[in-house]
């Protein structure tokens, strides 16, 4: 079976699975899976760029996805004028001082000779900078968070169209990736992994605790949408007429319309990125990347600037994850920092890439859809299995109750088993790199 036939076949299978969900469960569920599948596929493309193309081991996907989420708040929410007046200048000044301090410290370490004086000077720069930063930052934040804390208590956003948040989310993620890459790339692969794991946790900690930024665990809800609200559609006579004309219940029709709207927008982004990734893969740049991945020493000996290339691809891949994160938060309509879990937003994406086929863009996309479908459907399937297993047990037995209560944890188990099986029996994934 040729690779392209296999590609078509597997994508056809995924389409069938989603269509099947539509027929068996509901079209709403099917579209929900499709939309998150599109977002997941985009994240998988980003990780594939880093791992499949360049062999970079990034386990901080969650952090970049969350930064994308932050972008939606910063771009799309209406500004809280009172908070801006109260503390924006202080916060911005503090952040500027912070950035300046770090820059100065880096400059000092670059310019001075190794030894105690250097350590002392850079340390005192850092300490002094930190004290000034806190002196500016703390009161400003207190001011901002005092403004109507139950509803706002944060700076709000810029009030721009939410779709603008997608590229901005990519930029935010790219910026963070640049900083991480500058420090951690060039270290051994396991170290990069731990470093990215750590930065992701820190980003989530910032989102959870910096209430002035995005309300922390109080969440930002009611993000503006790029598509109409269902209720508006239901009140729109033209829409009602068309829905009834098609013989669909108006409420259902409105939800389907909204989801289809998201799906189309996501599909445009995914296809765009996929085309770009394919072009990159077959370009001289892509060939060089793979050459570096396969033999870093030889590539270095040929005069390739391996670290710079790695930084490039790391920033690009992270940016894609940021875009996907912004899209996801747009779809959710809210930013809930507590919901970011590494197993779901980092390691699940890795399962997608590995299962789909690392190094193959179509593989990553396939993995995104397939694994997302399973992630959603394992729970009802698991519940059915458990019901079958426990059907013989007496009602009210603790084991039966326990098993039925634990169904949700089948997901993690299944994902692990799938990953291990694929690694064992198809180590290059369902759609291997050519």
């Amino acid at each position, binding site marked *: 079976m040729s690779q392209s036939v296999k590609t078509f076949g597997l994508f056809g299978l995924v389409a069938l699975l989603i269509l099947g969900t539509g027929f068996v469960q509901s079209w709403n569920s099917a579209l929900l899976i499709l939309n998150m599948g599109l977002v997941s596929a985009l994240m998988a493309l980003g990780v594939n760029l880093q791992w499949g193309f360049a*062999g970079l*081991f990034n386990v901080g996907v969650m952090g970049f996805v969350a930064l994308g989420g932050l972008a939606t708040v910063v771009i799309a929410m209406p500004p809280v004028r009172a908070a801006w007046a109260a503390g924006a200048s202080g916060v911005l000044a503090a952040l500027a001082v912070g950035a300046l301090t770090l820059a100065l410290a880096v400059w000092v370490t670059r310019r001075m000779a190794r030894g105690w004086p250097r350590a002392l000077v850079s340390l005192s720069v850092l300490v002094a900078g*930190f004290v000034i930063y*806190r002196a500016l930052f*703390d009161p400003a934040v207190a001011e901002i968070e005092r403004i109507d804390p139950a509803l706002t208590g944060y700076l709000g956003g810029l009030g721009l169209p939410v779709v603008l948040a997608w590229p901005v989310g990519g930029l935010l993620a790219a910026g963070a990736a640049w900083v991480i890459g500058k*420090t*951690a790339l060039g*270290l*051994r*692969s*396991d*170290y990069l*992994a*731990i*470093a990215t*794991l*750590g*930065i992701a*946790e*820190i980003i989530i*900690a910032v989102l*959870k*605790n910096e209430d002035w930024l995005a309300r922390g665990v109080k969440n930002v809800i009611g993000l503006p949408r790029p598509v109409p609200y269902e209720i508006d559609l239901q009140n729109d006579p033209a829409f009602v007429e068309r829905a009834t004309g098609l013989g669909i219940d108006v409420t259902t029709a409105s939800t389907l319309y909204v989801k289809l709207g998201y799906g189309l927008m996501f599909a445009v982004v995914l296809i765009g990125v996929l085309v770009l990734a394919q072009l990159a893969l077959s370009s001289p740049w892509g060939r060089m990347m793979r050459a570096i991945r396969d033999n870093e020493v030889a590539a270095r000996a040929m005069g390739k600037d391996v670290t710079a290339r790695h930084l490039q691809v790391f920033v690009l891949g992270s940016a894609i994850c940021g875009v996907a994160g912004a899209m996801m938060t747009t779809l959710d309509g809210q930013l809930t920092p507590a919901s970011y*879990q*590494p*197993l779901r937003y980092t*390691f699940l994406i*890795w*399962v997608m890439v*590995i299962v789909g086929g690392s190094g193959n863009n179509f593989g990553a996309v396939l993995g995104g859809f397939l694994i997302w479908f399973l992630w959603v459907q394992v729970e009802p399937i698991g519940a059915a299995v458990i019901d079958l297993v426990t059907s013989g047990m007496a009602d009210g037995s603790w084991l039966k109750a326990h098993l039925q*209560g*634990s169904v949700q*944890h*089948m*997901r*993690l*188990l*299944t*994902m*692990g*088993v799938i*990953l*291990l099986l694929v*690694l*064992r029996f198809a*180590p290059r994934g369902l759609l291997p790199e050519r």
Partner: protein
Amino acid sequence: MDILNALVVLANFVLIPAIAYGAQLALGALGVTLIYGILRFSNFAHGDTMAFGAMVTILVTWALQGWGVSLGPLPTALLALPFGILGCMALVLLTDRLVYRFYRAQRVKPVILVIVSMGVMFVYNGVVRFVIGADDQRFADGERFIISVRDFKALTGLEEGLGIRTTQGLTVVTAVITVALLFWFLNRTRTGKSMRAYSDNEDLALLSGINPERVVMITWLLVATLATIAGTLYGLDKTFKPFTYFQLLLPVFASAIVGGLGSPVGAIAGGFVIAFSEVGITYAWKKVAEYLLPEAWEPDSLLQLLGTDYKFAVSFVILVIVLLIRPTGLFKGKSV
């Protein structure tokens, strides 16, 4: 100025918690570093291995408590610990047989093993949550304090109190015994030496007739023991929650890397470096300062460098600094 009270506050809020936490991290990091030294990969499933061992211990503890067995002032979990270790040993040996051995025979690149360990992580995580749920579990019993704050105040007449929880004392004692036994094993026994030889120079070890599969098996047994003890002590001292154990991966790895991956002494040093930094940087020093500084200089702020929620940031920053300045860690680890 009141040095005595300042010291007591310091001990109560920084030194003692950090020592206990450092001991737990050190035990965790020892497991990571052993796997790295012998099997040559970073085991992402280690946090969940700790969770599994602790879970078995908890289940046995509950059973013992149900039968009315207790250790008096000490937690019943101590009695259950050997069963937890055995359970964890069974788990990791089974995993090695079903999963890792295949890749070892293929001599795959270490990063592939890391990805494999991600799969194992998912499975362990799922198993633990499936069996015991995702919520907090309490299993500590026995006497709560070796010395309570109130007793300490009554005893010394100081303004400030110093409380030492049983679990903190137990953590330190158990960790010291465990580490002493481990080092005796590695440095004094033939099998331990063969493990070090294998870690040092695999080809020469094979040439010397050291059986790699045996070395690997013993490594897993040690890792299971260390992970279960670390997990149980952490659970007793704080709380058992599967997700917390997964999150421990970061400080545990930071400890192992800061100390030098592959170096057991380094793992212990790294554990304490990370623990003291985390506790010290997220502690509000106001109270200590109040005792030490003249009244006029007393600070208005809490003197807290970072909120406690940023403790990951501390591990991370120390990790990055050490990696940039001394990539092999404080005690020269292996750099593959």
